[in-house]
């Protein structure tokens, strides 16, 4: 199997789950049976984007057991955005506590400003003695708040199955709200937000294979029509 065929098979796995359940075996057989050109790879990438659009922009109709459903995908986006803002709020709170600790230690002096701007070595050990070793804990907490916390609901929603309830918003609306608010308030944080959501999306799309369902009809789940 050559590189183009491998890439094509990966692209097939990145199609929406409903499409994959119905067509992935056939398309994989086709890809393995014939030479794959760059044009075919581009064609599959375009097809994947189109099928996600087709599946995601439908009205929200929950079908338990089939996930990620557009409703769950929308929930993923909104929860990611909300938790992201919560993370930033907590990070800013921690930052404010740190500033207060510095000011309490040094008063409103030039030295306090030097400390706050990080120009004095070992400052964290001096002003945050309770966090030992202060700088490591501070960095770890910061990393968790900025990268870990937003990922938690993404992973939770990605693994959320059998919900069976309606969501009052569409994927498109959730995407627009999440991106526009993040872009407006925190344009420099977009890469973190985008990376987290992308990771969640890859998880949610079931890219990592699960054990196939056994029994008759396991591979004949009807395609959800656009």
């Amino acid at each position, binding site marked *: 199997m050559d590189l183009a065929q491998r890439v*094509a098979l990966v692209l097939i796995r990145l199609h929406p789950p409903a*499409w994959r359940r*119905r*067509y992935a*075996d*056939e*398309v*994989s*057989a*086709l*890809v393995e*049976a*014939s030479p794959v050109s760059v*044009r*075919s790879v*581009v*064609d*599959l*990438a*375009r*097809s*994947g984007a*189109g*099928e996600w659009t087709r599946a995601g922009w439908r009205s929200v109709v929950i079908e338990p057991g089939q996930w990620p459903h557009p409703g769950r995908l929308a929930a993923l986006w909104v929860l990611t955005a909300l938790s992201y803002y919560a993370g930033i709020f907590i990070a800013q709170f921690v930052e404010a506590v740190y500033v207060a600790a510095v000011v309490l230690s040094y008063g409103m002096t030039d030295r306090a400003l030097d400390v706050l701007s990080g120009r004095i070595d070992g400052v964290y050990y001096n002003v945050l003695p309770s966090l030992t070793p202060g700088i490591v804990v501070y960095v770890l907490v910061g990393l968790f708040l900025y990268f870990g916390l937003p990922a938690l609901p993404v992973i939770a929603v990605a693994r959320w199955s059998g919900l069976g309830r309606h969501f009052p918003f569409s994927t498109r609306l959730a995407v627009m709200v999440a991106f526009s608010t993040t872009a407006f308030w925190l344009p420099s944080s977009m890469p973190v937000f985008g990376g987290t959501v992308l990771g969640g999306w890859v998880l949610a799309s079931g890219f990592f294979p699960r054990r196939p369902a056994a029994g008759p009809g396991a591979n004949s789940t009807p*395609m959800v*029509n*656009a």
Partner: protein
Amino acid sequence: MSRKLDSLNDLGRFSEPALYVLISLADGPKHGYAMTQDIEQMTGQRPGPGTLYGAISRLEAKEWIAPLPADDRRRPYKLTGAGMKVLRARLDSLKEVTRIGASRLATG
């Protein structure tokens, strides 16, 4: 010709590949690989796997083609009665367009 019946246009960018799939299935059921080869012979261009199955999924959703039991990982498809009507209507439409074009070329 009835425009309503010839609703292949509803398939957007897939209307042309969908027409080729319908033509390919007109002489009997075929699976994806056989359709690819048939369409390549017919048009001189090999349809990409994404385009082919994009067309197949849309035709199946409209019930113009129907899947048959899978043979290993290959699943053949057959043309349905409704699909045959749509294909016939589209070919009639194309025949008319061809006739008009040819007559204009002859008189031009």
